[in-house]
């Protein structure tokens, strides 16, 4: 066991609340212009290059990844039981979460630094 389940669940609930709050800000920012405009290439790149917005996107990425992969771990643990299976699910979900955060962060960093 990596940490007590109550700590994991506190993180789970906390990331959910944090993600709802930040995604709400993200949606409100999208409403500053028409929806089709907000998806135009130049506007998307401009968003990434605004440092505050890039940090917001990074936080959303981390919160949703942690929450989502822990949720997936819980579902998989309930579906089947067994020591090696459970270990595989736990470490697999952590690895997948780290990979997703790393890939997403790479995109955010590269775009905000003007490398795209």
């Amino acid at each position, binding site marked *: *066991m990596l940490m*007590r*389940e*109550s700590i*994991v*669940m*506190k993180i789970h*609930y906390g990331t959910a609340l944090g993600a709802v709050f930040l995604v709400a800000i993200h949606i409100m920012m999208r409403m500053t212009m028409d929806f089709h405009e907000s998806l135009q290439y130049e506007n998307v790149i401009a968003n990434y290059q605004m440092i505050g917005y890039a940090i917001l996107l990074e936080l959303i990425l981390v919160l949703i990844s942690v929450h989502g992969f822990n949720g997936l771990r*819980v579902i998989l*643990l*309930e*579906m089947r*039981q067994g020591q090696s299976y*459970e270990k595989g699910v736990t470490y697999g979900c952590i690895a997948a979460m780290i990979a997703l955060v790393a890939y997403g962060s790479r995109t955010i960093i590269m775009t905000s630094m003007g490398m795209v």
Partner: protein
Amino acid sequence: MAAIQPKISEEKSQTIVSSTKSATLRIKRSSSDGFEKFDQFIVPVEKWTTVLDALLDAKSHLDHSIGIRYSCRQASCGSCGMKINGKPALACFTKISELDSETITIEPMDNFPVIRDLVVNFSRLINNHKKIMPYVIRGDSEITPGTGVRETLQTPEDVEKYIQFSSCIKCGLCNSACPTMAMDTSFIGPQALAQAYRYIADTRDNGKKNRLKIIDESHGIWRCHAAGSCSQVCPKGVDPAMGIQMLRSYLLGIRD
């Protein structure tokens, strides 16, 4: 699981009673080796006939081999839990007249391994119950003669915190109704969790830390989906779902 073969036999009780009414019992016959079928028995019923009475009538007069576990016949021992018309209930506490149905389907409880017919294996329930240390834990004895130590008194408010949970008769209906128990074979279950709360909420008990540690694991309290079916089926009015939420509030630090 093997498919249920609709092999039905129908027999009629020869019991001489004043009743002119009868009910059809549709009993699931099964064994641990996967054999399953339904047998039908027609039994006479009165206004006060319980499902257990009807089952015992069928067992006495029609088929001695029907497997049933029962004891007190008054909802005290928790032996006769079974699925009656799809809902977990005590056979001795369910009147046929209240079921509003002429055919009563009786099956063994879900989420328990079947030993034979309506008898299930309670090992998992008992093991989980033992795991949460279902007794008051404290260093001193209640009364030590000559030391001036008196019994550990409780106010009515202290008793109110846990008294409903002490009504648990370990019948297993809550575990049978629990959707998580159906999927997660390692889940501790609503019965054990409610009993953990019963002792944690007791002001005489000092075992809170240990019990919270036991239930705070990957197949412990956090796997409860708050469906509330455990509380709905309890024949003794225990509310395991509430106990589980109270335990969660301890673990989340909302309550001390």
